[in-house]
């Protein structure tokens, strides 16, 4: 328990540092969001309006950086991330709230599928090394070596343009009203097939390769030989002795990749115009939308930290050697 507590404190400090950097970053960058806004409205803003925009974005020249920092924290804790320029005057938190489920749904599910599939294949390939299963390794590695945007575009060209079996873009049909209906859910799944499959295809090789190699290493350990000598069934030896130990490095990798679920979607969502966080970030960067970018960065940072904490907890559960006396 003390170990977890120490880790939690560590992550809290890291989160504080990350949020502070997040606060400083746009203030250190050249360019000024309000100026960008003024340009957008082509000078049709009065001096008062400009000043109130500065205040609105927390960039008031009359307040010190420290005051800005404190009010930034105050706003953060009340869930106020400011207003987005791109989707002005929608609050950033609302923009994030709308795009988050799409990203989590697509990337979260595909990451889990990719990890599960890759691990199972990897366990089997490692256990039966030297057989035909090994052929899966170069084949899947080939697909993961292809740059993702290219793979995505080819998938669109083949399955959405030539054959027209799947839609090319979007998270749901343009005319449909989002809601909790079976029809809508079906449409969402249908639209998710192409991006999901391309993600799994391009990421599964890493899990297979890692798991296979660990299985090969672990299979040479004495305790696996002992398990054979004990007359346990092949299945039992493979799962409880070999795979159980071989999976440990993959688990931390998996937790970390869960952290990147939120952040690593830029390419996918750009290629498939998927209405998730990455697509929003892409639009935000184009529009110099500092509050939106800050919001996305904040969410990504926190997700990575939470994933790290999950990795620690997972390791505690899976590997007794990491448990200290106090546990």
């Amino acid at each position, binding site marked *: 328990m003390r170990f977890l507590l120490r880790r939690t404190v560590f992550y809290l400090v890291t989160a504080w540092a990350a949020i502070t950097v997040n606060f400083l970053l746009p203030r250190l960058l050249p360019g000024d969001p309000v100026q960008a806004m003024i340009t957008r409205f082509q000078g049709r803003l009065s001096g008062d309006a400009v000043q109130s925009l500065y205040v609105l974005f927390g960039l008031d020249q009359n307040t010190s950086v420290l005051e800005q920092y404190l009010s930034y924290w105050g706003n953060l804790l009340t869930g106020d991330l400011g207003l987005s320029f791109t989707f002005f005057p929608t609050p950033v938190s609302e923009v994030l709230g709308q795009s988050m489920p799409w990203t989590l749904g697509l990337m979260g599910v595909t990451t889990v599928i990719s990890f599960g599939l890759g691990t199972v294949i990897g366990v089997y390939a490692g256990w039966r090394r030297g057989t035909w299963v090994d052929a899966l390794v170069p084949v899947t590695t080939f697909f993961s070596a292809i740059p993702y945007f290219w793979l995505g575009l080819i998938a669109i060209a083949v399955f959405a343009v030539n054959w027209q079996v799947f839609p090319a873009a979007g998270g749901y049909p343009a005319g449909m009203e989002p809601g909790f209906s079976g029809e809508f859910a079906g449409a969402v799944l249908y639209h998710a097939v192409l991006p999901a499959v391309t993600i799994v295809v391009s990421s599964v090789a890493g899990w297979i390769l890692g798991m296979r190699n660990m299985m090969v290493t672990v299979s040479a350990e004495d305790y696996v030989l002992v398990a054979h000598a*004990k007359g346990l069934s092949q299945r039992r030896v493979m799962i409880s002795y070999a795979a159980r130990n071989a999976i440990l490095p993959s688990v931390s990798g998996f937790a970390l990749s869960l952290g990147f679920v939120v952040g690593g979607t830029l390419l996918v969502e750009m290629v498939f115009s998927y209405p998730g966080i990455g697509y929003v970030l892409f639009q935000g960067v184009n529009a110099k939308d500092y509050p939106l970018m800050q919001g996305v960065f904040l969410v990504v940072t926190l997700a990575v930290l939470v994933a790290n904490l999950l990795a620690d907890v997972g390791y505690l559960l899976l590997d007794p050697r990491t448990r200290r006396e106090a546990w």
Partner: protein
Amino acid sequence: MSVLEVRGLSVDYGTLRAVHDVDLTLERGEVLGLAGESGSGKSTLAYAMTRLLPPPGVIRSGTVRYKGFDLLSLAPEQLRTLRWNDIAIVFQGAMNALNPVASVATQLLDVFRAHRPSMPRAARLARCRELLHLVGISPDRLDSYPHQLSGGMRQRVMIAMALALEPEIVIMDEPTTALDVVMQRQILEQMMELRAALGFSVVFITHDISLLVEFSDRIAIMYSGRVVEEAPAQSLYRAARHPYATGLLGSFPALRGPRRPLRGIPGSPPDLRHVPSGCPFHPRCASAMDVCTARTPVLAPVDQHRSVACWLEHENRGAT
């Protein structure tokens, strides 16, 4: 009466022959010591007998008779049931022989799960406690993980595990190599007490000749994948006949009796890729003759209890 009979066993690693046409008999209730330098094939022999040889090891020929079965041609499922029920192994290096992520209880219970599926859980647990008690470990250690135990305790757990199903044969492969001298003795003495009480036979593999002489009934000395001398422990210790066995004994200090100078064996173990012609030991042998470089001596009895593979012996008996 013999419990295990190995006949003509040969094992290859690729093109290397690691075990060469070995005959070995394990009598009921005896401790058979297998000795030899690193790479002499003693562990390979033990793993081949139980078909646990990791790839690329391949058994080329031979039979291993146990209770009328040939272990080497047994169907996988039969072999699986026979393992641990009849032949258990205490492995070398207590450090890695236990699964680091499973508790002692889980690993002991696994044995019953695989071999005594009808045994009720309470009885299995009781048996686990009894086994730990047998090897002198407190039964409340059942919930411990291997990293929470000392090296000696881990080796005791391995012994407890080996005895779980009361096997006929226990193969001990360098069981005490990773332990300090005091612990080695304690564990071996305990093992021998258990053997006396439970009556299993032991194949004891080590390169520590002094331990071997003390704890074995009979010793087989291996060199370059062959058994070169086989004799009762005491007579081997008093007067080895094969020059290699003499050298091996001469390179360890005597536990008892007068001091004698320590001699090593000149040269190093043969490279299995380039085994010398004739007797593989002849380049290191002080008494090598012309015939030794040309022809390989076979293991043959020289008296009622002793077999030697050496031209010196054969010539003494006028065999060639």
